[in-house]
């Protein structure tokens, strides 16, 4: 653990590390004086570290992360982690030297992020966490899923507790401006809808006057519902709950006439409703735009670009028809666009490195290990009964469009 210290500092530090805590209780005065000297030397050692840290050439945890630029922040002593955000160091370097990507997600949204029987995160958002890990680290499993409550997500992002937020988060102007978040390519274009009991007799939200609508707290849902009621001249009482379990209880007990949320969420919740999905019906109206996008902290363009291109790779992969199954058949492709996209060595050792700080084969790793956009969608959201709709490729009339990789 001390081998990253420059030579003259190393000795002092090793002697200190060799001192067992248990000995401190029974020390005689001479030992105590020696220990004091050791502590002093260690302080000197620590000082050496902050001076000499940048000369170290090893990465902790033994990852052979690409781009061997060891970050100063990664090798300083624990006491030096004062600043939450390191100005001169990109999160990209920090993640690559840590060898693990901390993804802010959740554990209770069917289709987007839930836990399977073995406790693994599965879902659309969870897969995009893996996409980022595959692109940045070359390993889709090198991701640390951090479950966040809705109202804690931006704080976790700002404080660096998570490297990115892939947590069903709507991109809005106020969040972009006030929460210190940079939103990236939306992974799912959603809209708010209304779910009611099948036997309620409501066929449209315009039928719903003088009713109670239940929503989740701390989301844009409350405001959208209030705005829609005002727009339509209806009296809606909006009742916010801390989590979907409580909403479901309240809904079953008949405290709410309507359950409003993003239609994708409603579809997921409907699929696991205790009385069966047929007991509920989602009304046809969609009354808000909810682009669900990954977010990173403001002020780190390098990291934002890296995450963005990881997302784009899934879309571009679908456009090229490359899937996790057939990707290796493209090894001999003659299409120069695909060659560049997959980071293949074309002639000699010519390979496109657009300078994003990502490994040149990041798109290959993303699609090979996780899949393209269609695979991720079909795996997680199609079983809920969600259609591609506006989330189809641009070439199919949807909104999914990747800038060219060249």
């Amino acid at each position, binding site marked *: 653990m001390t081998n990253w210290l420059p030579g003259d500092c190393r000795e002092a530090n090793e002697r200190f590390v060799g001192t067992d805590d248990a000995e401190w209780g029974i020390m005689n005065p001479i030992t105590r004086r020696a220990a004091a000297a050791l502590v002093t030397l260690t302080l000197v050692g620590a000082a050496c570290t902050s001076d000499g840290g940048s000369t170290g050439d090893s990465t902790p945890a033994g990852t052979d992360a690409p781009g061997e630029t060891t970050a100063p922040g990664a090798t300083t002593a624990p006491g030096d982690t004062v600043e939450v955000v390191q100005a001169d160091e990109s999160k990209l370097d920090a993640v690559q030297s840590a060898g693990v990507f901390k993804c802010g997600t959740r554990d209770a949204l069917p289709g987007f992020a839930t836990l399977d029987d073995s406790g693994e995160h599965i879902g659309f958002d969870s897969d995009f966490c893996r996409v980022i890990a595959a692109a940045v680290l070359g390993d889709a499993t090198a991701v640390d899923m951090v479950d966040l409550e809705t109202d804690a997500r931006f704080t976790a992002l*700002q404080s660096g507790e998570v490297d990115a937020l892939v947590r069903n988060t709507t991109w809005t102007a106020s969040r972009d401006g006030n*929460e210190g978040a940079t939103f990236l390519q939306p992974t799912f274009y959603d809209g708010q809808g209304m779910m009611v009991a099948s036997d309620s007799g409501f066929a449209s939200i315009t039928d719903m006057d003088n009713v109670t609508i239940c929503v989740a707290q701390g989301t844009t849902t409350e405001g959208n519902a209030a705005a829609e009621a005002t727009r339509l001249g209806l*009296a809606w009482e909006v009742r*916010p709950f*801390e989590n979907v379990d409580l909403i479901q209880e309240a809904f079953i007990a008949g405290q709410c006439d309507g359950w409003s949320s993003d239609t994708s969420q409603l579809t997921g919740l409907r699929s696991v409703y205790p009385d069966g999905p047929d007991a509920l019906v989602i009304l046809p109206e969609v009354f808000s735009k909810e682009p669900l996008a990954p977010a990173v902290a403001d*002020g780190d363009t390098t990291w934002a670009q890296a995450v963005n291109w990881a997302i784009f790779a899934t879309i571009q992969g679908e456009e090229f028809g490359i899937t996790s199954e057939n990707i290796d058949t493209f090894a001999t492709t003659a299409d120069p666009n695909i060659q560049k996209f997959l980071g293949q060595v074309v002639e000699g050792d010519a390979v496109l490195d657009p300078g994003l700080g990502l490994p040149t084969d990041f798109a290959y790793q993303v699609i090979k290990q996780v899949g393209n956009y269609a695979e991720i969608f079909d795996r997680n959201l199609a079983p809920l009964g969600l259609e591609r709709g506006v989330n189809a490729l641009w070439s199919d009339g949807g909104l999914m469009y990747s800038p060219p990789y060249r």
Partner: protein
Amino acid sequence: MTAALGTPRVPVWRDVRVLKWVAQIIVVAIAVAIVVWLYGNYVENASRQNIPTDMGFLDNPASFQITGNSLSQNAPVRDALYQGFLNTLRVSVVAIVAATVLGTVIGIARLSTNWVVRQLATVYVEAVRNIPLALFLTAGFLVVVLGVFPQITDAWDLAGLAVVSNRGVAVPWFEGSGAGLLVLFGAGAVAWFAAAKWRGRVADRTGALPRSGLWGFGAFAVVVAVGWGIFGYSYTLPSLDGRGTIGGIRIDPSFFALFFALTIYTASHIAEIVRGSIQAVARGQAEAADAVALSGFQRMWYVILPQALRIGLPPIGNQYLNLIKNSSLGAAIGYYDMTLVAKTTVGNGSPAVPVFFLVMVVYIAISLIVSALVNVANRRFALVER
């Protein structure tokens, strides 16, 4: 070496008086430095991420509505937070009054000579205060509000006076401004107090029974009735109307659940304080009351309780502070107190740190004011020893 005349001068660095001051200054300097450092860190990191650190967000539209409140969604965040503050006060004041009464009764029951009453009180105290309040609240909401209260379509109509459903309890309410009513009831309370005081003096002078409670209530009723007639308040009865109620005032189910949870929980703590305080009153006091042939109630009401509450006042005041802070747990079941308004506005784009800083300052202010009031009352009632 010649001995110096008089006391030798102590050097500055060994002078205890100086050292004491130096120590104080160092501690203050360290504390200030830590705060400045934390604040500097926050401002630096926030501005690096373009997060506003000022209070400008207060003027943005809140863009959400507070359940059971007429505030428009276009009202500024400032107003939404103020309504949240009022909601915190509402539930706290009502629950404090109820918890004090219930807690005192249970505390006395804990010392009852009746075995059944005593055991029931013990079971109540031990069961309630050993359950986390958050659990109690959620369970109360699920079991009572959602489990017991009927759906709105078959709400209980209690003789036209109340409509009970899981969307709230509608009760008769006055029409007109709440401030006017508050003044009226305030005047009534003053009349009650004055009448009671006067009866006390009469009793001291003539030895007649004071009956100050009866007289006080009479004075209160007369003042309120006369004021009511003069200002012409009317009231409306609640009735069912489709999927809601009209008339009267509807008490939100989340308010209900939170009020009951806070009252029952805090009462269990107050009961223990009351019991302890009663036991701390010297035994001779009860014996003296028996000696002058006071009844059991008179002994408790005139002799024991006034002395016991004097002992119990400071710790009961602490329970009041706990209750006010615990009211923030109502957020879980959707009671729009100050905390939930803060959480919601943060979810809708207000910067987290200034919002929560503001809310914390308000909680601290409320707590300090309550604490000051308790201290004033304590000084006023404290036994003056000579």
